[in-house]
Protein backbone atom coordinates (compact mmCIF):
# COMPACT_ATOMS: atom_id res chain seq x y z
CA UNK A 1 0.00 0.00 0.00
CA UNK A 2 2.72 2.46 0.98
CA UNK A 3 4.56 1.52 -2.18
CA UNK A 4 1.54 2.48 -4.27
CA UNK A 5 1.06 5.85 -2.63
CA UNK A 6 4.70 6.64 -3.21
CA UNK A 7 4.27 5.98 -6.91
CA UNK A 8 1.80 8.77 -7.47
CA UNK A 9 3.37 11.58 -5.46
CA UNK A 10 4.31 14.80 -7.17
CA UNK A 11 8.06 14.34 -6.87
CA UNK A 12 7.84 11.18 -8.87
CA UNK A 13 10.19 11.32 -11.82
CA UNK A 14 7.56 10.16 -14.26
CA UNK A 15 7.07 12.31 -17.36
CA UNK A 16 3.62 13.16 -18.58
CA UNK A 17 2.42 14.75 -21.77
CA UNK A 18 -0.18 17.48 -22.20
CA UNK A 19 -1.62 19.22 -25.23
CA UNK A 20 -1.43 22.99 -25.21
CA UNK A 21 -3.80 24.04 -27.96
CA UNK A 22 -4.95 23.89 -30.73
CA UNK A 23 -7.38 26.27 -29.04
CA UNK A 24 -5.37 28.02 -26.38
CA UNK A 25 -5.65 31.75 -25.68
CA UNK A 26 -1.91 32.31 -25.52
CA UNK A 27 -1.11 30.89 -28.95
CA UNK A 28 -3.36 33.46 -30.70
CA UNK A 29 -4.38 31.00 -33.35
CA UNK A 30 -4.57 27.30 -33.96
CA UNK A 31 -1.21 26.01 -32.86
CA UNK A 32 -0.90 22.77 -30.89
CA UNK A 33 2.09 22.25 -28.64
CA UNK A 34 2.61 18.76 -27.26
CA UNK A 35 4.53 19.38 -24.07
CA UNK A 36 6.32 16.72 -22.02
CA UNK A 37 6.41 17.74 -18.38
CA UNK A 38 8.16 16.57 -15.27
CA UNK A 39 6.17 18.26 -12.53
CA UNK A 40 5.86 21.79 -13.88
CA UNK A 41 9.10 21.74 -15.85
CA UNK A 42 9.06 21.47 -19.63
CA UNK A 43 11.22 18.57 -20.81
CA UNK A 44 10.39 18.54 -24.47
CA UNK A 45 8.02 20.34 -26.79
CA UNK A 46 6.76 19.30 -30.20
CA UNK A 47 4.78 21.82 -32.25
CA UNK A 48 2.00 20.40 -34.40
CA UNK A 49 1.01 22.75 -37.18
CA UNK A 50 -1.09 22.70 -40.31
CA UNK A 51 -4.54 23.41 -38.89
CA UNK A 52 -4.99 26.29 -41.32
CA UNK A 53 -2.76 25.10 -44.13
CA UNK A 54 -4.41 26.51 -47.26
CA UNK A 55 -1.79 25.52 -49.79
CA UNK A 56 -0.98 29.09 -50.78
CA UNK A 57 2.17 27.99 -52.61
CA UNK A 58 0.16 25.51 -54.67
CA UNK A 59 -2.53 28.09 -55.41
CA UNK A 60 0.12 30.53 -56.64
CA UNK A 61 1.10 28.08 -59.38
CA UNK A 62 -2.25 28.46 -61.10
CA UNK A 63 -2.81 32.23 -60.83
CA UNK A 64 -1.13 35.31 -62.24
CA UNK A 65 1.37 37.55 -60.47
CA UNK A 66 -1.05 40.41 -59.65
CA UNK A 67 -3.38 37.82 -58.13
CA UNK A 68 -0.63 36.38 -55.91
CA UNK A 69 -0.46 39.73 -54.07
CA UNK A 70 -3.86 39.15 -52.55
CA UNK A 71 -2.88 35.74 -51.21
CA UNK A 72 0.19 37.12 -49.47
CA UNK A 73 -2.07 39.35 -47.38
CA UNK A 74 -3.48 36.21 -45.85
CA UNK A 75 -0.15 34.84 -44.66
CA UNK A 76 1.12 37.24 -42.06
CA UNK A 77 -1.98 39.39 -41.81
CA UNK A 78 -0.28 41.86 -39.50
CA UNK A 79 2.49 42.57 -42.03
CA UNK A 80 0.15 42.47 -45.00
CA UNK A 81 1.61 45.52 -46.69
CA UNK A 82 5.20 44.26 -46.41
CA UNK A 83 4.25 40.86 -47.83
CA UNK A 84 2.65 42.57 -50.83
CA UNK A 85 5.76 44.64 -51.28
CA UNK A 86 7.98 41.56 -51.35
CA UNK A 87 6.14 40.02 -54.29
CA UNK A 88 5.94 43.34 -56.14
CA UNK A 89 9.65 44.04 -55.70
CA UNK A 90 10.46 40.57 -56.98
CA UNK A 91 8.28 40.94 -60.07
CA UNK A 92 9.67 44.42 -60.75
CA UNK A 93 13.22 43.14 -60.36
CA UNK A 94 12.55 40.32 -62.80
CA UNK A 95 11.09 42.70 -65.39
CA UNK A 96 13.83 45.29 -64.71
CA UNK A 97 11.37 48.13 -64.21
CA UNK A 98 12.55 51.41 -62.72
CA UNK A 99 10.23 52.46 -59.95
CA UNK A 100 9.72 56.21 -59.43
CA UNK A 101 10.82 57.67 -56.11
CA UNK A 102 7.31 58.59 -55.08
CA UNK A 103 6.28 54.95 -55.02
CA UNK A 104 9.39 53.91 -53.10
CA UNK A 105 8.83 56.55 -50.42
CA UNK A 106 5.13 55.81 -50.00
CA UNK A 107 5.85 52.10 -49.78
CA UNK A 108 8.45 52.68 -47.09
CA UNK A 109 6.15 54.89 -45.02
CA UNK A 110 3.33 52.37 -45.27
CA UNK A 111 5.67 49.51 -44.38
CA UNK A 112 6.85 51.29 -41.25
CA UNK A 113 3.29 52.14 -40.22
CA UNK A 114 2.52 48.45 -40.67
CA UNK A 115 5.46 47.55 -38.46
CA UNK A 116 4.31 49.93 -35.73
CA UNK A 117 0.72 48.64 -35.72
CA UNK A 118 1.96 45.06 -35.69
CA UNK A 119 4.20 45.71 -32.70
CA UNK A 120 1.37 47.53 -30.95
CA UNK A 121 -0.92 44.54 -31.30
CA UNK A 122 1.89 42.25 -30.16
CA UNK A 123 2.52 44.50 -27.16
CA UNK A 124 -1.08 44.53 -26.03
CA UNK A 125 -1.57 40.78 -26.41
CA UNK A 126 1.77 40.03 -24.77
CA UNK A 127 0.79 42.13 -21.80
CA UNK A 128 -2.55 40.40 -21.65
CA UNK A 129 -0.91 36.95 -21.77
CA UNK A 130 1.08 37.88 -18.69
CA UNK A 131 -1.95 39.18 -16.83
CA UNK A 132 -1.87 42.90 -17.60
CA UNK A 133 -5.28 43.43 -19.16
CA UNK A 134 -4.89 47.24 -19.24
CA UNK A 135 -2.20 46.89 -21.91
CA UNK A 136 -4.75 45.51 -24.28
CA UNK A 137 -6.83 48.66 -24.23
CA UNK A 138 -3.87 51.02 -24.45
CA UNK A 139 -2.40 49.15 -27.41
CA UNK A 140 -5.63 48.90 -29.38
CA UNK A 141 -6.43 52.57 -28.73
CA UNK A 142 -3.26 53.63 -30.54
CA UNK A 143 -3.41 50.96 -33.23
CA UNK A 144 -6.85 52.16 -34.28
CA UNK A 145 -5.31 55.45 -35.41
CA UNK A 146 -3.00 53.68 -37.87
CA UNK A 147 -5.81 51.47 -39.14
CA UNK A 148 -7.87 54.60 -39.80
CA UNK A 149 -5.01 56.01 -41.90
CA UNK A 150 -4.89 52.72 -43.81
CA UNK A 151 -8.62 52.73 -44.35
CA UNK A 152 -8.56 56.23 -45.76
CA UNK A 153 -5.80 55.52 -48.25
CA UNK A 154 -6.09 51.81 -49.04
CA UNK A 155 -9.74 51.03 -48.40
CA UNK A 156 -8.80 48.08 -46.23
CA UNK A 157 -7.76 48.18 -42.61
CA UNK A 158 -5.71 45.05 -42.13
CA UNK A 159 -5.75 43.24 -45.47
CA UNK A 160 -4.67 46.29 -47.42
CA UNK A 161 -3.57 44.94 -50.86
CA UNK A 162 -2.21 48.39 -51.60
CA UNK A 163 0.75 47.36 -53.74
CA UNK A 164 0.58 46.05 -57.25
CA UNK A 165 3.41 45.19 -59.64
CA UNK A 166 4.65 48.52 -60.95
CA UNK A 167 3.50 50.70 -58.09
CA UNK A 168 0.46 51.29 -55.97
CA UNK A 169 -3.22 50.60 -56.53
CA UNK A 170 -4.16 54.25 -56.05
CA UNK A 171 -2.59 57.49 -54.89
CA UNK A 172 -2.44 58.48 -51.24
CA UNK A 173 -5.39 60.31 -49.73
CA UNK A 174 -4.99 64.12 -49.53
CA UNK A 175 -5.14 63.86 -45.73
CA UNK A 176 -2.44 61.20 -45.57
CA UNK A 177 0.57 63.36 -44.68
CA UNK A 178 -1.36 65.42 -42.17
CA UNK A 179 -2.77 62.41 -40.39
CA UNK A 180 0.52 60.52 -40.30
CA UNK A 181 2.22 63.54 -38.75
CA UNK A 182 -0.58 63.84 -36.20
CA UNK A 183 -0.16 60.19 -35.37
CA UNK A 184 3.61 60.47 -34.91
CA UNK A 185 3.17 63.43 -32.56
CA UNK A 186 0.51 61.54 -30.65
CA UNK A 187 2.46 58.28 -30.44
CA UNK A 188 5.65 60.01 -29.28
CA UNK A 189 3.61 61.04 -26.23
CA UNK A 190 1.86 57.72 -25.64
CA UNK A 191 4.77 55.32 -26.18
CA UNK A 192 6.28 56.25 -22.78
CA UNK A 193 2.99 55.05 -21.27
CA UNK A 194 3.84 51.58 -22.56
CA UNK A 195 7.06 51.68 -20.57
CA UNK A 196 5.26 52.89 -17.47
CA UNK A 197 2.67 50.15 -17.72
CA UNK A 198 4.81 47.15 -18.53
CA UNK A 199 8.53 47.70 -19.06
CA UNK A 200 9.26 48.81 -15.52
CA UNK A 201 6.72 46.57 -13.85
CA UNK A 202 8.34 44.33 -11.22
CA UNK A 203 6.07 41.35 -11.83
CA UNK A 204 6.64 41.62 -15.57
CA UNK A 205 10.40 41.80 -15.14
CA UNK A 206 10.42 38.79 -12.83
CA UNK A 207 8.53 36.74 -15.37
CA UNK A 208 10.62 37.72 -18.38
CA UNK A 209 14.20 38.54 -17.35
CA UNK A 210 16.54 35.67 -18.07
CA UNK A 211 13.67 33.45 -19.20
CA UNK A 212 14.01 31.46 -22.41
CA UNK A 213 17.47 32.55 -23.41
CA UNK A 214 18.45 32.09 -27.06
CA UNK A 215 22.19 32.17 -27.72
CA UNK A 216 23.68 33.92 -30.73
CA UNK A 217 24.95 30.60 -32.14
CA UNK A 218 21.49 29.07 -31.92
CA UNK A 219 19.86 32.15 -33.41
CA UNK A 220 22.06 31.83 -36.50
CA UNK A 221 21.85 28.03 -36.69
CA UNK A 222 18.06 28.06 -36.45
CA UNK A 223 17.77 31.18 -38.58
CA UNK A 224 15.75 33.16 -36.05
CA UNK A 225 15.30 36.61 -37.55
CA UNK A 226 13.50 39.82 -36.78
CA UNK A 227 13.42 41.23 -33.26
CA UNK A 228 13.72 37.65 -31.97
CA UNK A 229 17.11 37.18 -33.62
CA UNK A 230 18.30 40.72 -33.01
CA UNK A 231 17.65 40.41 -29.27
CA UNK A 232 20.30 37.68 -29.33
CA UNK A 233 22.76 39.89 -31.19
CA UNK A 234 22.19 38.37 -34.62
CA UNK A 235 22.51 41.25 -37.06
CA UNK A 236 19.85 40.19 -39.54
CA UNK A 237 18.03 43.36 -40.58
CA UNK A 238 17.38 43.06 -44.32
CA UNK A 239 16.68 46.79 -44.46
CA UNK A 240 20.38 47.29 -43.67
CA UNK A 241 21.85 44.32 -45.53
CA UNK A 242 20.04 44.65 -48.84
CA UNK A 243 18.22 48.01 -48.76
CA UNK A 244 15.08 48.00 -50.87
CA UNK A 245 12.51 50.75 -51.55
CA UNK A 246 13.66 53.93 -49.78
CA UNK A 247 15.64 52.40 -46.92
CA UNK A 248 18.95 53.43 -48.48
CA UNK A 249 18.10 57.11 -48.07
CA UNK A 250 17.04 57.14 -44.42
CA UNK A 251 19.20 56.79 -41.34
CA UNK A 252 18.10 54.45 -38.60
CA UNK A 253 19.69 52.08 -36.14
CA UNK A 254 19.51 48.33 -36.20
CA UNK A 255 18.29 47.42 -32.71
CA UNK A 256 20.68 44.85 -31.24
CA UNK A 257 20.87 43.31 -27.78
CA UNK A 258 23.05 40.51 -26.49
CA UNK A 259 21.00 38.82 -23.77
CA UNK A 260 18.51 37.04 -25.99
CA UNK A 261 15.97 36.47 -23.23
CA UNK A 262 12.25 37.18 -23.26
CA UNK A 263 12.73 40.62 -21.73
CA UNK A 264 15.17 41.72 -24.44
CA UNK A 265 12.95 40.40 -27.22
CA UNK A 266 10.35 42.68 -25.69
CA UNK A 267 12.74 45.64 -25.52
CA UNK A 268 13.81 45.08 -29.13
CA UNK A 269 10.25 45.54 -30.37
CA UNK A 270 9.64 48.63 -28.25
CA UNK A 271 12.88 50.14 -29.58
CA UNK A 272 11.90 49.24 -33.13
CA UNK A 273 8.71 51.25 -32.86
CA UNK A 274 10.86 54.32 -32.08
CA UNK A 275 13.13 53.59 -35.04
CA UNK A 276 10.11 53.21 -37.31
CA UNK A 277 8.81 56.59 -36.20
CA UNK A 278 12.21 58.11 -37.01
CA UNK A 279 12.08 56.62 -40.51
CA UNK A 280 8.59 57.95 -41.13
CA UNK A 281 9.54 61.43 -39.88
CA UNK A 282 12.44 61.59 -42.32
CA UNK A 283 10.22 60.72 -45.27
CA UNK A 284 6.76 62.13 -44.62
CA UNK A 285 7.59 65.72 -45.61
CA UNK A 286 9.63 64.68 -48.63
CA UNK A 287 7.28 62.60 -50.72
CA UNK A 288 8.39 63.38 -54.28
CA UNK A 289 5.91 64.28 -56.97
CA UNK A 290 5.27 61.83 -59.74
CA UNK A 291 3.04 58.99 -60.86
CA UNK A 292 1.80 56.49 -58.30
CA UNK A 293 2.16 53.56 -60.69
CA UNK A 294 4.12 52.60 -63.75
CA UNK A 295 2.09 51.42 -66.70
CA UNK A 296 2.42 47.66 -66.95
CA UNK A 297 1.43 45.20 -69.64
CA UNK A 298 -2.04 43.77 -69.05
CA UNK A 299 -0.58 40.25 -68.81
CA UNK A 300 2.61 40.07 -66.81
CA UNK A 301 5.01 37.34 -67.88
CA UNK A 302 8.34 37.00 -66.13
CA UNK A 303 11.36 35.99 -68.19
CA UNK A 304 12.54 32.46 -67.57
CA UNK A 305 14.73 32.29 -64.49
CA UNK A 306 14.81 32.40 -60.73
CA UNK A 307 14.25 35.43 -58.58
CA UNK A 308 14.69 35.89 -54.86
CA UNK A 309 13.61 38.89 -52.82
CA UNK A 310 14.19 39.37 -49.13
CA UNK A 311 12.27 41.92 -47.08
CA UNK A 312 12.04 42.67 -43.39
CA UNK A 313 8.53 42.14 -42.04
CA UNK A 314 7.52 42.94 -38.49
CA UNK A 315 8.54 39.41 -37.47
CA UNK A 316 11.68 38.85 -39.45
CA UNK A 317 12.97 37.99 -42.84
CA UNK A 318 10.44 37.13 -45.50
CA UNK A 319 11.85 35.60 -48.66
CA UNK A 320 9.91 35.27 -51.89
CA UNK A 321 11.46 32.79 -54.30
CA UNK A 322 9.90 32.68 -57.75
CA UNK A 323 10.90 30.19 -60.43
CA UNK A 324 9.46 31.24 -63.77
CA UNK A 325 9.28 29.26 -66.99
CA UNK A 326 8.20 32.30 -69.01
CA UNK A 327 4.46 31.88 -68.56
CA UNK A 328 1.96 34.20 -66.94
CA UNK A 329 1.85 32.00 -63.86
CA UNK A 330 4.95 30.88 -61.97
CA UNK A 331 6.40 27.38 -61.98
CA UNK A 332 7.02 27.53 -58.25
CA UNK A 333 6.65 30.13 -55.55
CA UNK A 334 8.19 29.64 -52.15
CA UNK A 335 7.56 31.91 -49.20
CA UNK A 336 10.28 31.71 -46.61
CA UNK A 337 8.13 32.86 -43.75
CA UNK A 338 9.77 34.24 -40.63
CA UNK A 339 7.26 32.68 -38.23
CA UNK A 340 7.77 29.17 -39.58
CA UNK A 341 11.46 29.41 -38.82
CA UNK A 342 11.05 31.23 -35.50
CA UNK A 343 8.71 28.51 -34.28
CA UNK A 344 11.50 25.94 -34.59
CA UNK A 345 13.47 27.57 -31.75
CA UNK A 346 10.59 27.22 -29.29
CA UNK A 347 11.62 23.72 -28.19
CA UNK A 348 15.22 24.79 -27.67
CA UNK A 349 14.51 27.84 -25.52
CA UNK A 350 11.61 26.55 -23.43
CA UNK A 351 13.33 23.41 -22.14
CA UNK A 352 13.85 23.57 -18.39
CA UNK A 353 11.36 26.38 -17.83
CA UNK A 354 7.97 26.09 -16.16
CA UNK A 355 4.83 25.69 -18.19
CA UNK A 356 3.70 29.17 -17.11
CA UNK A 357 6.91 30.57 -18.60
CA UNK A 358 6.06 28.90 -21.87
CA UNK A 359 3.27 31.47 -22.29
CA UNK A 360 5.76 34.29 -21.86
CA UNK A 361 8.32 32.70 -24.18
CA UNK A 362 5.78 31.90 -26.86
CA UNK A 363 4.36 35.42 -26.64
CA UNK A 364 7.79 36.97 -27.04
CA UNK A 365 8.30 35.15 -30.37
CA UNK A 366 5.24 36.98 -31.72
CA UNK A 367 4.00 34.10 -33.83
CA UNK A 368 1.27 34.59 -36.40
CA UNK A 369 -0.09 31.13 -37.18
CA UNK A 370 -1.41 31.65 -40.74
CA UNK A 371 2.13 32.60 -41.73
CA UNK A 372 3.46 29.32 -40.33
CA UNK A 373 0.91 27.15 -42.09
CA UNK A 374 0.58 29.13 -45.33
Amino acid at each position, binding site marked *: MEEKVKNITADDQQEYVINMGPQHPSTHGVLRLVVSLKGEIVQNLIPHIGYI*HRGIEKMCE*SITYPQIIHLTDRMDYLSAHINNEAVCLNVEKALEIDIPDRIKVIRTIMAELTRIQSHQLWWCSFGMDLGGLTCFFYGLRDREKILDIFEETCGGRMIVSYNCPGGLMYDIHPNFQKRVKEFINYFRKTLPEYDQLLTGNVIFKERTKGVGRLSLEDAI*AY*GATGPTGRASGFSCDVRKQEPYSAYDRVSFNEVLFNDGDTYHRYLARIAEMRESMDIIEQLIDNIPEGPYAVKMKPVIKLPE*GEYYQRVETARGELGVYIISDGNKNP*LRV*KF*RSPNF*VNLSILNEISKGWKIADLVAIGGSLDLVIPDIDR
Partner: protein
Amino acid sequence: MDNKQLEELITTFDQDIETTEGKQYLEVTLPADKLHSFAAQLKENDKTRFDYLFCLTGVDYGQDLGVVYHLRSTVHSHYIVLKVRTSDRENPKFDSVTDIWKTAEFHEREVFDLLGISFNNHPDLRRLFLDSSWGYPLRKDYVDDINIVTK
Protein backbone atom coordinates in the same frame (compact mmCIF):
# COMPACT_ATOMS: atom_id res chain seq x y z
CA MET B 1 34.50 38.48 -51.38
CA ASP B 2 32.72 38.96 -54.68
CA ASN B 3 31.16 36.20 -56.74
CA LYS B 4 34.20 35.73 -58.99
CA GLN B 5 36.61 35.07 -56.12
CA LEU B 6 34.05 32.90 -54.40
CA GLU B 7 33.61 30.85 -57.55
CA GLU B 8 37.36 30.28 -57.83
CA LEU B 9 37.60 29.29 -54.21
CA ILE B 10 34.77 26.78 -54.14
CA THR B 11 35.89 24.99 -57.29
CA THR B 12 38.97 24.00 -55.31
CA PHE B 13 36.69 22.22 -52.80
CA ASP B 14 35.24 19.86 -55.35
CA GLN B 15 35.80 19.30 -59.05
CA ASP B 16 32.35 17.85 -59.78
CA ILE B 17 30.38 21.02 -59.16
CA GLU B 18 28.98 23.24 -61.85
CA THR B 19 28.83 26.97 -61.17
CA THR B 20 26.69 29.54 -62.92
CA GLU B 21 26.45 33.26 -62.30
CA GLY B 22 22.79 33.77 -61.43
CA LYS B 23 20.90 37.04 -61.68
CA GLN B 24 21.60 37.76 -58.02
CA TYR B 25 23.57 35.02 -56.39
CA LEU B 26 26.23 32.55 -57.41
CA GLU B 27 24.51 29.26 -58.19
CA VAL B 28 26.12 25.86 -57.78
CA THR B 29 24.68 22.64 -59.15
CA LEU B 30 26.17 19.53 -57.68
CA PRO B 31 25.57 15.76 -57.67
CA ALA B 32 23.36 14.51 -54.86
CA ASP B 33 26.00 12.31 -53.25
CA LYS B 34 28.41 15.28 -52.88
CA LEU B 35 25.83 17.53 -51.21
CA HIS B 36 26.56 16.83 -47.57
CA SER B 37 30.35 16.95 -47.73
CA PHE B 38 30.32 20.09 -49.88
CA ALA B 39 27.82 21.84 -47.60
CA ALA B 40 29.89 20.96 -44.55
CA GLN B 41 32.97 22.42 -46.21
CA LEU B 42 31.14 25.63 -47.06
CA LYS B 43 30.25 26.07 -43.43
CA GLU B 44 33.55 25.03 -41.86
CA ASN B 45 36.01 26.79 -44.16
CA ASP B 46 37.13 30.11 -42.67
CA LYS B 47 37.03 31.90 -45.99
CA THR B 48 33.45 30.93 -46.83
CA ARG B 49 31.69 30.43 -43.43
CA PHE B 50 28.18 29.96 -44.79
CA ASP B 51 26.53 29.65 -41.40
CA TYR B 52 23.03 30.92 -42.13
CA LEU B 53 20.68 28.83 -44.25
CA PHE B 54 17.89 31.29 -44.95
CA CYS B 55 15.79 29.31 -47.39
CA LEU B 56 15.38 25.69 -48.35
CA THR B 57 12.99 24.97 -51.20
CA GLY B 58 11.78 21.76 -52.77
CA VAL B 59 10.94 22.12 -56.45
CA ASP B 60 9.17 19.94 -58.99
CA TYR B 61 10.65 20.90 -62.35
CA GLY B 62 8.25 18.67 -64.26
CA GLN B 63 10.65 15.81 -65.01
CA ASP B 64 13.02 16.16 -62.10
CA LEU B 65 12.63 16.87 -58.44
CA GLY B 66 15.14 19.08 -56.74
CA VAL B 67 16.07 20.98 -53.60
CA VAL B 68 17.48 24.52 -53.54
CA TYR B 69 19.50 25.88 -50.62
CA HIS B 70 20.00 29.62 -50.13
CA LEU B 71 22.96 30.39 -47.91
CA ARG B 72 24.46 33.50 -46.41
CA SER B 73 27.58 34.10 -44.40
CA THR B 74 27.02 36.31 -41.37
CA VAL B 75 30.80 36.88 -41.16
CA HIS B 76 31.62 37.73 -44.79
CA SER B 77 28.12 38.78 -45.95
CA HIS B 78 28.24 36.80 -49.18
CA TYR B 79 25.60 34.53 -50.65
CA ILE B 80 25.47 31.23 -52.50
CA VAL B 81 22.75 28.99 -53.85
CA LEU B 82 23.14 25.20 -53.92
CA LYS B 83 21.01 23.01 -56.16
CA VAL B 84 20.60 19.27 -56.29
CA ARG B 85 18.33 17.29 -58.59
CA THR B 86 17.13 13.77 -59.03
CA SER B 87 15.13 12.14 -61.82
CA ASP B 88 13.85 9.42 -59.49
CA ARG B 89 10.22 10.33 -58.85
CA GLU B 90 9.33 7.10 -57.09
CA ASN B 91 11.76 7.32 -54.23
CA PRO B 92 13.65 10.64 -54.27
CA LYS B 93 16.26 10.89 -51.53
CA PHE B 94 18.91 13.39 -50.53
CA ASP B 95 21.24 13.68 -47.57
CA SER B 96 19.90 15.79 -44.75
CA VAL B 97 21.82 18.93 -43.79
CA THR B 98 20.19 19.14 -40.36
CA ASP B 99 23.49 18.42 -38.62
CA ILE B 100 25.08 21.41 -40.39
CA TRP B 101 22.23 23.94 -40.09
CA LYS B 102 19.61 23.19 -37.44
CA THR B 103 17.00 25.25 -39.25
CA ALA B 104 16.93 22.61 -41.99
CA GLU B 105 14.98 20.25 -39.75
CA PHE B 106 11.66 22.07 -40.21
CA HIS B 107 12.32 23.00 -43.81
CA GLU B 108 13.13 19.42 -44.78
CA ARG B 109 10.00 18.16 -43.08
CA GLU B 110 8.02 20.64 -45.14
CA VAL B 111 9.67 19.44 -48.36
CA PHE B 112 8.97 15.85 -47.39
CA ASP B 113 5.36 16.69 -46.64
CA LEU B 114 4.55 18.61 -49.80
CA LEU B 115 6.84 17.01 -52.38
CA GLY B 116 7.59 13.55 -51.02
CA ILE B 117 11.35 14.00 -51.07
CA SER B 118 12.91 12.15 -48.15
CA PHE B 119 16.17 12.92 -46.41
CA ASN B 120 18.76 10.49 -45.08
CA ASN B 121 19.75 10.92 -41.42
CA HIS B 122 16.96 13.38 -40.63
CA PRO B 123 16.19 13.16 -36.89
CA ASP B 124 12.41 13.35 -37.13
CA LEU B 125 11.09 12.97 -40.66
CA ARG B 126 7.30 13.10 -40.34
CA ARG B 127 4.62 14.91 -42.27
CA LEU B 128 4.25 18.49 -41.13
CA PHE B 129 1.06 20.14 -42.37
CA LEU B 130 -0.97 17.28 -43.80
CA ASP B 131 -1.84 13.81 -42.58
CA SER B 132 -0.74 10.64 -44.30
CA SER B 133 -3.93 10.25 -46.37
CA TRP B 134 -2.79 13.05 -48.68
CA GLY B 135 -0.54 12.68 -51.68
CA TYR B 136 2.21 15.20 -52.33
CA PRO B 137 0.34 18.35 -53.38
CA LEU B 138 3.22 20.44 -54.71
CA ARG B 139 4.07 17.84 -57.34
CA LYS B 140 2.98 18.73 -60.83
CA ASP B 141 1.21 15.39 -61.34
CA TYR B 142 -0.89 15.75 -58.18
CA VAL B 143 -4.56 15.23 -58.98
CA ASP B 144 -7.39 16.78 -57.00
CA ASP B 145 -10.58 16.91 -59.04
CA ILE B 146 -12.58 18.78 -56.44
CA ASN B 147 -10.31 21.59 -55.31
CA ILE B 148 -8.10 22.23 -58.32
CA VAL B 149 -10.06 23.62 -61.25
CA THR B 150 -8.28 23.70 -64.59
CA LYS B 151 -9.71 25.99 -67.17
